[in-house]
């Protein structure tokens, strides 16, 4: 009874100290996943790797564990022989954050990053022997953040140097996910040229899509690091990170604010948003619904009595011993012999 009392006291106290947001318990999702994909290889595409690693870092900082982040990186920039800073990837000219730091778990690397693997991952059609770390083990309560970066064109996104995924294929994969109850809501972010063409063919519910540029526009890089000799981050991702850096797991920033990140005079391309499939109002959705991993906790102010289980007599029920016998063969041929 003592324990009960303490818990109730604590909860009562907390509810006085915090104003619980209205929609705190109304998100409807029970877990968060992130699929972060860099689709392009080669040294001069350093910035795409930096993009995806930066998002990875933010997502992890906001609480999604590595086990629920699928990180796909098509090329190893850190160990590229051309890298003058071996074993590092930076996303800023000041080089204060090594986004390829201590604790990066890359799930799909190099030539494993293919359209087939990506679609199989989304739809859950991977071979049974695939390790858990390479599977997207989501359910109908999962909020998924999908972030893609690479080189795109009108209606496709190039994977590696050899294949591409079309917007139709991606739309179908998401529909399959919906039908298989693999997600609750999806925040889909794509940072490529003509990015908005990627979400045009979506038709499944509960998807909020953001693209770094409209059809006919290029997504541009943000700045160059002359010490490394490559462009190191794209504009949209740079400003998105700028926003995410100020987000804490407990902060109440909403998705609407995130959608306004990178206006045209910063991005030089128009950020495209598709809201019609998303059933909630982005103004009331906290960013942490997708970028963080806050489990909804139902709070109660009423006292509940937790009854301790009564001590029962645990005597083993004695089962009567059965006798086994052979059943007659079917069809019975004994009478003919």
């Amino acid at each position, binding site marked *: 009874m003592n324990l009960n009392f303490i818990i109730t006291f604590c909860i009562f106290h907390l509810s006085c100290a915090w104003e619980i947001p209205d929609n705190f318990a109304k998100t409807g999702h029970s877990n968060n996943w992130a699929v972060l994909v860099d689709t392009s290889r*080669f*040294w*001069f595409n350093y910035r795409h790797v930096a993009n995806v690693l930066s998002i990875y870092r933010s997502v992890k900082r906001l609480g999604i564990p590595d086990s629920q982040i699928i990180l796909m990186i098509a090329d190893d920039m850190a*160990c*590229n*022989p*051309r*890298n*003058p800073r*071996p074993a590092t990837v930076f996303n800023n000219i000041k080089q204060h954050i090594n986004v390829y730091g201590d604790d990066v778990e890359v799930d799909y690397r190099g030539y494993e990053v293919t359209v087939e693997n990506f679609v199989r991952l989304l739809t859950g059609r991977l071979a049974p022997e695939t390790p858990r770390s390479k599977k997207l083990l989501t359910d109908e309560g999962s909020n998924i953040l999908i972030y893609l970066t690479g080189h795109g064109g009108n209606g496709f996104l190039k994977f590696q140097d050899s294949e591409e995924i079309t917007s139709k294929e991606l739309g179908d994969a998401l529909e399959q996910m919906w039908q298989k109850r693999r997600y609750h809501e999806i925040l889909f972010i794509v940072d490529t040229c003509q990015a908005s063409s990627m979400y045009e063919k979506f038709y499944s519910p509960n998807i909020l899509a953001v693209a770094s540029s409209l059809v006919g526009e290029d997504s541009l890089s943000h700045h*160059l690091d*002359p*010490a*490394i*000799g*490559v*462009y190191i981050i794209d504009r949209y991702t740079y400003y998105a990170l700028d926003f995410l850096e100020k987000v804490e797991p407990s902060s109440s920033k909403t998705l609407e604010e995130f959608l306004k990140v990178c206006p045209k005079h910063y991005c030089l391309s128009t950020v495209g948003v598709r809201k019609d499939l998303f059933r909630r109002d982005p103004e009331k959705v906290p960013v942490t619904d997708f970028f963080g991993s806050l489990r909804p906790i139902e709070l109660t102010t009423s006292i509940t009595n937790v009854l301790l289980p009564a001590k029962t007599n645990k005597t083993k029920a004695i089962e009567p011993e059965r006798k086994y016998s052979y059943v007659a063969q079917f069809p019975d041929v004994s009478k003919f012999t």
Partner: protein
Amino acid sequence: MGLLTDPRAGSGKIIKFLLKWERPLCFFLYISGIVWILLLALPIFNDNTYFSENALLPGLVTKESNLEQTTKQYYTHLINEMKRYPDVMPYAWLAAKLNQLHLDVFTHNFTLIYPFQEQQFTGQNIYGIIRAPRAASTEAIVVSVPFRPIHSIYLDTAPSIALLLAFAKFCRKQKYWAKDIIFLITEHEQLGIQAWLDAYHGVTSGNGGVLISGDLPGRAGSIQTAINLELHSMKITSIDVKIEGLNGRLPNLDLFNLAQNMIAKEGIRQSFQRRFDVKYKNKFKNWWYHFNTLLMMITSQATGIPTGNHGLFHRFGIEAITLEGFEKPGQQSSDGNFYQVGRIVESIVRSLNNLLERFHQSYFFYLLPSTDTYISIGLYIRSLVLIIGGIFVKAFSMWQRLQVSTSTEDKKNIVVKQSKDDGFDIGIITSEILWAHICGVTIATSPFALTYVGKKMDFRTEDSIYFGFVVITILTLIWPFYFRRQMKYKNAALICVIALVELGTVLMCIAMHNFSLALLAAVIYVPYVFILPIMPKQNFTKFHRMLSFGWISLHPFMIASLIIMCYTYVNFSSDSLPLILFRGYRAIKQAFVFSIVDSMIYGNWLYNVTISTMFPIWFLFWNILCSNIL
């Protein structure tokens, strides 16, 4: 129903039009081709150069080198060493310096057995390899310098050797190389580089048993690109980028752009064909300047002789250029500027290091009217096609006329006069063509016999080849007069048609390999072919006689001699006329020998192609002009 072979089937409107306007049309095509070439130099017809290759990342990285002091130190040591051994390359010193930098240093010996006299020359190349520290040794970049002894007739290259050593020292300390870098110092100009490349790839490019390249003791990966340095002074005020390679091959335009851009970025004047980018306000002057640059490129490409050591790399699919640095005479800048020159080389090599594949994005066929504009093959080939188109129009209309005349004759002589008389005499025609070509091939292979005979008479190689060619020329000129043959007009015309078609085809084939050569040949030969008087002798006027006499000057040997004479005159116009003639005469002798030797050592096909294709065509026309056409 019109059959394909029915002579009347083709006499439609177009053919009638062609027959009527044949000569004006031919000249119109020729002139429009020439005008097209002239227009190409107009800035509005040129596109600005740009980088096609994403991976190059030109000039994005901070340059870290400061080679001024190290270059100066190496330079003073090298000059001392060269003074001690004025005639040979200081092998030991160079190898020691490269060894001190902890490079993999190797020497390569090669032998040249001079084809016409049993003489042997030997030479040595020295090269050091920096292995890419974090990559497999599968690809390499070459930085090369030709060594020239103090008494060499060519401009000094000691500063570039000093820069090469200083740059090697810088590169050794860097950890970002993804390709091996080969630092190569070659001897005996192009012989050294040819022998080294042959040895590196294990092939023999020229005739067997002439240049014996041996084997290399050490190799790096497959060579992607090469930069050849020829810096003539320790104070470089301008850098010229040379691109023309063996047989008129060019490096990828991206490499040329890269070099020009990097030079401009470091604030040194860049030039092409030793001509700076000058912008005149006067439009005509501007055009004229660009046109001259273009013309210089065309003429130097047409010879098929590499303008520097870079030219021999192209055969192996290696993109290569030469950076030639000059000092402006009279300008006394207080300091050297190898700081900048070093940074140019650094940034070029750093960009090449970024490459993921061989150069393939940009043009391989182009012409350049200035350092920052280009003319693509899609534009310039039209001029040649227009010019050559005239030949085919002429051949076709001649053929049609023959058909028409046969058919009308047939109608007149219904009296059965078997086709033996009015048809073509296939035997005469084929033998004529066959003999002309056999002559061509024989002359192409004659130099060995000429030198052999010459040696018996104690002639020098130059003399025996030159006089041999003179004799051949005279023989071919008087040959048709000696056998004063009679030929029917029809046969003569058919030979003419075949020769025209062959000329057009040969020119087009040459254009595929060396556009400039085909263009120059077409500009010279095509108009003359249009006006050649192929007609029965009784219609000949004095003017016609003169025209056919003029054909002599288009004999390949004659025209080569004329061009060299003009070239000598242009270069030494201040000398007196006899002296110019003497100089020209010596130059012609040497040019013949060089073109033959080049074809043996390097595989330059200028001599072989002109003699085995252009000569027979010339000879066919000459035979017809001289024979008695009935």
